[in-house]
């Protein structure tokens, strides 16, 4: 059950858990957002859990035999679903912004340009 992440010890984050908590920065961001918003009361963690269970069930029925399990993909989907349901985001807001970010000039990494 040991996994290699191709990181030198100097680059590896703290591993108090015995393995990396997150395999990519975006996984940490989406976890942090989901948790922070529930702590702020936008939804309860149980509501997030319900959305996550639904996203996992969808993933498992559509990827039954393909590829590696993408747990944090389900996390992104659950968060997006819940934010739209709560009226915090319009249903197309993320896709629109996604397109804008992709259209940025190469090397542009400023997150909040508006």
């Amino acid at each position: 059950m040991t996994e290699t992440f191709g990181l030198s010890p100097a680059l590896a984050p703290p591993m108090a858990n015995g393995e990396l908590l997150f395999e990519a920065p975006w996984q940490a961001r989406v976890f942090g957002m989901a948790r922070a918003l529930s702590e702020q009361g936008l939804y309860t963690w149980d509501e997030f859990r319900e959305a996550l269970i639904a996203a996992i069930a969808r993933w498992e029925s559509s990827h039954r035999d393909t590829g590696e399990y993408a747990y944090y993909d389900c996390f992104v989907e659950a968060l997006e679903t819940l934010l739209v349901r709560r009226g915090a985001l319009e249903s197309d807001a993320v896709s629109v912004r996604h397109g804008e970010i992709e259209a940025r000039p190469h090397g542009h990494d400023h997150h909040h340009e508006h």
Partner: protein
Amino acid sequence: MSDESHQSIRTEAIESLLMERGLLKDGVVDSVIERFNERVGPMNGARVVARAWTDGEFKRALLNDGTAAIEPFKLEGGQVEKLVVVENTPAVHNVVVCTLCSCYPWALLGLPPKWYKSPEYRSRVVREPRKVLGDFGVTLDDDVTVKVWDSSAEIRYLVLPEQPAGSKGLDEEALAGLVTRDSMIGVARLT
């Protein structure tokens, strides 16, 4: 475009929208990540286990009402609204799963390892627990009862592993250093 960079951009899109709309303040996400990276992890569960090994009264209280017993530890991380602690003995081996998603006692163990979240573990450990335990290197005699506990929104489980032979007399801190994450999920035994 790879799925990875797709998800990375999607996450950035969500975060930038939430920031603009004032739903997330600067630094809040960073502080959650830092908390889970540095202060919420299996070392907290290990302290609870070590206390149970050295203090019989605490152990009885822990097995009787886990939630109340860990209250004095003032643990961060949440996800233990109702904690049930199950004790491994020579006759009974307990193992924990969340069949639907990834429920886990964060305050005691941090975030779950990757395998705990995998569809394979979630389905197999219920169907063939002895075989799965064997894959983790735990072989149990036939007369040992295996109990599989399925976590839920309401209940989180912690396995109280058997104290390793030869560790009697060590103080609580030294004992905590012997307790592994996997032993508290029930997929390892301490030797």
